[in-house]
């Protein structure tokens, strides 16, 4: 079958070999865990522990604050030393529960492992919510909200996002290889909850071994295995849906508008743990890689582990000039290595100065590469130009708000113009102005 491919796209170098084939290891506990109360889209959790209190592994430390919010749990047992603002991956200091591990790693009371078949849909959703499961591909949107579409929206297709189109990152791949059964069970749970008849696993053709491993399982369970030609940003929700099903999500709509639910591999594994064992999301697979890292590897990292600890564990060749949480295309550069790994952190990348593009921005030569590369079929150069001149109406008319900030345009721009930054500014300014009016 010839898969339709989404428009545009680029081919950044993969850099995945360093971490792709080594088994993941467990990251040793750091001296201090910093567990932010805001690790998801929506209202931050409300702290429910105080300094000086001992907490067990998996114990609730922050209560969900509203429907679009999830609780936060202690990643290990230990002493709460403070509940105070700490550096957060977003760049500001935000309230976090600071935990000093006691080394015993004592679990709070745990459910017996049980089959999800005995549970009602409501009970499963409740467990997912209580476990604090959020989208682990980077967006960190609460999963229970996504699984609970408003009346009238019918989901007929579930897609597992195993594309991992960001260079260097191999965390999803390792989850898929090492926790295959968990992911497949999770897919069944998703189908059960959403009532979807069709299920697909979306994969890029740069991972033929994973495809081979999955093929018999998929055949047995009636899951479609969509092996897509490698192209960035295949892992973006709209692009993946189009590549797998040929459906176009409306620009102002959501995947559920075309009857599709997309979940990241890591999210599905976490969701299985939540439903079958009642385990909260306190650990995740993280790729630690990049040119400045001596021993690049995938680690199973407790949420709240400072990035500095990870870099120390894997070794850095020299003082890194840039530390990125997430992938190099959409991840955010951090101002301090004190920031912790949060639920949406798929990778920690360290770069030396010489690895970073150094050329300064020049004038646009109107080559049209950004227009051809844009997976949303926008005209980045025009939108960015309007943004720089504060012509927000024009930027909006050129559909600035459709931008998914994938970075393809800036990546390809021969003049090195930070197009995405301009467009991001325009998007924010357009929204701010709408709120004002």
């Amino acid at each position: 079958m010839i898969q339709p491919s989404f428009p545009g796209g680029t081919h950044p170098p993969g850099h995945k070999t360093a971490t792709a084939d080594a088994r993941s290891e467990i990251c040793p506990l750091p001296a201090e865990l910093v567990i932010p109360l805001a690790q998801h889209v929506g209202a931050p959790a409300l702290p429910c522990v105080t300094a000086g209190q001992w907490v067990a592994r998996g114990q609730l430390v922050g209560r969900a604050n509203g429907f679009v919010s999830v609780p936060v749990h202690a990643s290990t047992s230990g002493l709460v030393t403070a509940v105070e603002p700490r550096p957060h991956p977003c760049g500001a200091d935000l309230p976090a529960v600071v935990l000093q591990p006691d080394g015993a790693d004592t679990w709070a009371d745990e459910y017996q492992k049980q089959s999800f078949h005995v549970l009602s849909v409501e009970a499963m959703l409740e467990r997912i919510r209580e476990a604090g499961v959020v989208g682990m591909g980077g967006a960190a949107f609460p999963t229970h909200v996504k699984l609970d579409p408003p009346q009238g929206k019918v989901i007929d297709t579930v897609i597992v996002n195993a594309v991992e189109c960001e260079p260097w990152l191999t965390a999803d791949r390792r989850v898929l290889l090492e926790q295959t059964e968990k992911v497949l069970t999770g897919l069944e749970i998703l189908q059960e909850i959403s009532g979807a008849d069709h299920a697909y696993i979306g994969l890029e053709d740069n991972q033929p071994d994973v495809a081979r491993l999955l093929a018999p399982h998929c055949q047995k369970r009636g899951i479609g295995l969509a092996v897509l030609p490698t192209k960035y940003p295949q892992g973006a929700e709209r692009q993946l849906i189009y590549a797998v099903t040929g459906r176009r999500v409306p620009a102002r709509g959501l995947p559920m508008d075309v009857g599709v639910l997309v979940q990241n591999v890591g999210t599905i594994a976490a969701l299985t743990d939540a439903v079958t064992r009642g385990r909260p999301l306190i650990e995740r697979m993280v790729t630690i890689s990049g040119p400045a890292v001596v021993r690049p590897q995938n680690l199973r990292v407790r949420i709240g582990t400072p990035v500095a600890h990870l870099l120390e564990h894997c070794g850095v060749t020299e003082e890194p000039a840039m530390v990125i949480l997430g992938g190099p295309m959409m991840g955010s550069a951090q101002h301090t290595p004190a920031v912790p790994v949060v639920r949406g952190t798929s990778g920690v990348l360290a770069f030396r100065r010489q690895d970073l593009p150094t050329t300064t921005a020049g004038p646009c030569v109107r080559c049209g590469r950004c227009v051809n590369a844009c997976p949303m079929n926008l005209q980045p150069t025009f939108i960015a130009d309007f943004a720089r001149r504060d012509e927000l109406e024009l930027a909006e008319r050129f559909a600035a708000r459709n931008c998914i900030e994938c970075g393809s345009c800036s990546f390809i721009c021969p003049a090195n113009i930070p197009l995405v930054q301009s467009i991001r500014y325009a998007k924010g300014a357009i929204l701010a102005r709408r709120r004002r009016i």
Partner: protein
Amino acid sequence: MEPRTPLLIVSPSPHLHAGLTTRGMMGAVLLALLPAAATSIYLFGLPALRVLLICVVGSVAMEALWQKVADQPITVRDGSAALTGLLVAFNLPASSPWWLSLLGAALAIVVGKQVFGGLGHNPFNPALVARIVLLISFPSAMTHWTAPQPGRFLADAISAATPLSESQSAVMLTGHLPQHIIGFSSRYLLGNMPGCLGEVSALALLLGALFLLWWGVISWHIPISYLGTVTLLSGAFWLIDPSRYPHPAFHLVSGGLMLGACYMATDLVTSPLTSRGMLLFGCGCGLFTVLIRLFGSYPEGVAFSILLMNAVTPLIDRYVVPRPFGMDRSRELA
């Protein structure tokens, strides 16, 4: 207050770059033009080399001078001035006097490019602006062609006419084409004919264009649609009356068509952004070229047609826009 240990760099995502820069692209085009430049020296000898040098050095110097005087950052290192200079030289006959070459370079840089705000802001292809201004101002110097004398670098120049002007004047005088143009020969493909420096060897130009396509500096849309339109249109006329209208293959290899279609029309700055726009642009260029060649008073129409379409480019960019992904109809843009 001493700063903390080296600050981490924070920049907006993406933190990777594809690697191809403006400078790299200009360099690639320069490289692609080398075979044609070498051919021109081989064919026309030292005078060709002189024109090439004066134009390239003149353009770079002119740009640096302008930016110095205008108190702007000097950007000659991006290679665009050198490229413009080379293209200007390619549009001049080998017999051009030094002042003509220098004037061409200055016109291209100043009138064609810098007055509009420099690289990326010029609406018209700078080299073609220079060519047209020179052609209209100094018609005799600009149409004083010499016959190619392959390999004889120091030979005396022999005046000759380009195949295109030859065919045009023959049709005007006698009503039909000269015999050797009807029986079109392959020597034109290698460039063994009188003409501007860069336009004579279609083969060398094609070689460079293939390199650019492979390297991803230009896309196929403009050259293919341009050459395709010319072939179809001139082919239609040829079918109507082969004694009056030359064979399409003659059109393809003679005059500045190959140079225009592969290097001038594909100029990034002055061509449309989208693939569909490029196709439209190429078709327009082809249409005007054939019309001017067959019915105009000038024997050659490539420069005019590209400049005409340059003028239309903003319109194309305004109306030929991609439909945003996930949107039903193309909303009213602009």
